């Protein structure tokens, strides 16, 4: 690992010093050095400007949402909140955190995210490792199966019917099993195992008498930390934000609904016009169903997004060492 760190440090601080004893070359080098510096300076300026611009356009809406969630309701409805909070108040948070549904949703989402991610990573790893071995006999067959299933997807209703016949409806397994293996993730992992880990390492291990399991656990996984953390983060975010599977497969089990589903119910209730209003014949959702307030919404938004950001903050340090997907070997 330290090798890679060193290389990175060097890469970030290229030294322009090159030892050469010949005088004419020195003069030429000096000329090159001047050109480099100017060109490089311009490039540096441009890239810095781009990055600053990026920071602004990304940070602004995020700050806005946070500010809106702690601004007073009055300030929000009259649009006075521009960047910073106006009339700070935690009342929205108090209401939101006292809603039973929110706490229940949190618990469920945590469960789905943790368990779902573990299952997903496990399955994807044991799926990717064998097909990354070039001399694995069934490699092409298995790969073809994965590819075919990736291309053709049956759709919501047939999938529902299958799960139904397995008795998974209204059962937490229906959600855990959905999207259990992401085929594209499998390919990313496979490429990583195949291209970024020297085959010699495996050969050496085989000579020492290690079986494939040990190769996987002791060699492949530790060397793939970066890719693994990326894929894991993909999985975590996917599970955290999902609501559709729970909505369809757990209709009667409200005690298993994730946070995002409650959030959706709250946010969408007032912006959704029912069928009869579209037909022009009624205002079903206007006068006979009550609406939620703006204030609550922003608070709920913050509450449902902040934890996942925290997780990301913890996991992201593994990215430093770099993901080697199809990189050229020296």
């Amino acid at each position, binding site marked *: 690992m330290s090798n890679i760190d060193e290389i990175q440090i060097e890469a970030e601080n290229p030294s322009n010093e090159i030892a050469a004893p010949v005088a004419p070359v020195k003069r030429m080098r000096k000329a090159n050095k001047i050109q480099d510096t100017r060109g490089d300076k311009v490039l540096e300026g441009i890239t810095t400007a781009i990055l600053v611009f990026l920071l602004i356009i990304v940070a602004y809406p995020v700050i806005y949402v946070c500010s809106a969630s702690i601004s007073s309701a*009055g*300030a929000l*409805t*009259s*649009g*006075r909140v521009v960047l910073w909070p106006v009339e700070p108040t935690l009342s929205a948070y108090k*209401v939101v955190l006292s*809603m*039973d*549904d929110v706490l229940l949703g949190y618990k469920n989402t945590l*469960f789905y995210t*943790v*368990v779902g991610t*573990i299952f997903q990573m496990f399955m994807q790893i044991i799926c990717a490792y064998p097909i990354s071995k070039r001399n694995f006999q069934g490699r092409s067959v298995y790969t073809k199966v994965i590819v075919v299933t990736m291309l053709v997807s049956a759709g919501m*209703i047939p999938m*529902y*019917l299958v799960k*139904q016949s397995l008795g998974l*409806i*209204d*059962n*937490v*397994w229906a959600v855990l099993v959905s999207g259990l293996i992401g085929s594209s993730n499998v390919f990313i992992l496979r490429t990583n195992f195949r291209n970024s880990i020297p085959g010699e390492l495996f050969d050496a291990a085989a000579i020492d008498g290690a079986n494939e399991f040990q190769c996987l656990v002791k060699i492949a996984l530790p060397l793939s930390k970066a890719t693994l953390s990326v894929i894991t983060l993909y999985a975590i975010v996917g599970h955290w934000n999902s609501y559709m599977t729970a*909505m*369809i497969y757990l*209709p*009667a*089990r*409200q005690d*298993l609904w994730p946070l995002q*589903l*409650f959030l*959706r*119910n*709250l946010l*969408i*209730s007032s*912006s*959704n*016009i*029912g*069928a*009869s*209003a*579209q*037909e*022009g*014949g*009624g*205002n*079903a959702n*206007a*006068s*006979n*169903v*009550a*609406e*939620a*307030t*703006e204030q609550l919404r922003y608070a709920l938004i913050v509450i449902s997004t902040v934890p996942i950001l925290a997780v990301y903050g913890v996991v992201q340090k593994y990215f430093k060492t770099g993901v080697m997907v199809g990189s050229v070997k020296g």
Partner: protein
Amino acid sequence: MKRIIALLLCVVSVMSLFAACGGKAEKTSNKGSDGPVTLTIGIPKSSMVSDYYNNYYTQWLEEKTGYKLEFQFFATGAQDYKTQLSTMIAGNRTLPDILLGFDLGTDLYERYGRDGVFVDLAPYFNDEEASAIWWERFRLTDEYSQENNWRRMQAADGSGAIYAFPELQDSMIDIMDYQVWINQAWLDKLGLPMPTNPDELYDVLVAFKTKDPNGNGLPDEIPLTGTSGALSGQTMSWLINMFIYWDRNIHFNVDESGKLYSPYRADEYREALKYVRKLIKEGLLASQVLTSSSANEMKQLVTPAEGGAQLAGVVCGHLTLCFVQDDPGILNYEALPMWGNCIFHENTHNFTTFVTRDCQNVDAAWNLLMTMTTEESAVIQRYGKQGTPEEGGTWTWAPEGTESIMSTAEKPHSAQIRLYKDTWSTIGNDNWRNVEATILLNAEGEGNQAVPEEETEVRQHKYDLFNQALANYNKQIAEHNPKDELICPLLVWSAEYKEEGKAAADDCKTIVSRYRTDFCLGTKDINDDKAWSEYLAELDAKGFDMWLFYSQATYDETMAAKNG
């Protein structure tokens, strides 16, 4: 350290796995033999209800019927619960006994009815004894809508089946297609008289925009604002009806000789669109008019920011939706006199309650629905717990002869209810925040409540505004609207006609609405004759003749049945 964390995670997840797998939902039996009858109600979960079980209305119902009520919650958004329902039906899952508050649309629920998913309730409606409560209430609703509603309840295939249990809310205020308020303070400041026709309105709007009536030195006034579909906020309907009679649900008018014609092809309609385009182009009409249907958006525009100035000049929308409760800003507004046609809509009549095929005891379900239809139930659904504030309630019956806020010297009204607090938009467990499967009469509506003991100037003004608006409306209907013979009633096509002509009708309606949007926004030029004839040609291409033909046929039949 990492290993400990990993181990902990594994333990936690395995434990919760077992916990989650444990409880499977079981459908409780509702055979009356062992214990009380249990009914399962499927309902889109409202975030405004803190607890459905420990709930005043639930307990009231259980007490009155002796049944036990269980809830199965669905997602709140219309598309969401429709999806959930659709997948459940596709998978042959057990549905709850009663579906409450599912806005599926007539076509969809009638299809489900024909497929046997929903129970045909016609035998119950036709059984005098079983449906006595409902009929009694129904006959108290306004007569003009009784006929329409009864017809709409029937299945379109003419089989006489009734698949949906209706919810009818009569309220003179709510069924006004548009309520329009004008900022009198601004009129006074600029020394302008109340406008009485489109041109005068235009001048007033221009003055609002250019002469800075809110006095803050910025041209930030929004002269005219409205929505595209919020309650009593059908701004386009208001504007177009200044020029020609147009009922947005009927699509046709009748001429002297009894033949239907379409207002969408008339020159007056074109004039109306020109007027709207002019307003939008000159920044006098906020563009939300075509896209927004949310009450929150309206409130944003109308309520002045703290220490800020008022922004809205003329507002089209329901009073309670446009103004934040008890906002003194409302004192600046008066009702705009109407000079165009005025339309009432039975827009509070919804067919969103169904009894499903999986209900074991349809008699019990019917009994529950009858209980929900009673007067007391209807009022509880709307206002919450009965009782004085000391008793923890929000409303009581008003004694005979109590003056209502709608009362004027010429037309005294007697109130039925005394309201203490409006809990509709707050989170609570007093009712389901959903008026469903019931009939709420005009007399029981908020507009007819008893004059409160403590009156604020703001509230008094609010009632005055309602009265003004209603009076203006009725005046127009009496004096300006076309005669009854020239107004086309609601046409309910037979299944046969639908088969032949519905596609054409739907296509034409889509064309009409798209072109209207384009003309108003300026994407297509309303002043360009070529664009106009293109529009007419497109209508013809999509089968306008068929639409007209079947509508005419239905109209003739309806008239014959009426007179014959």
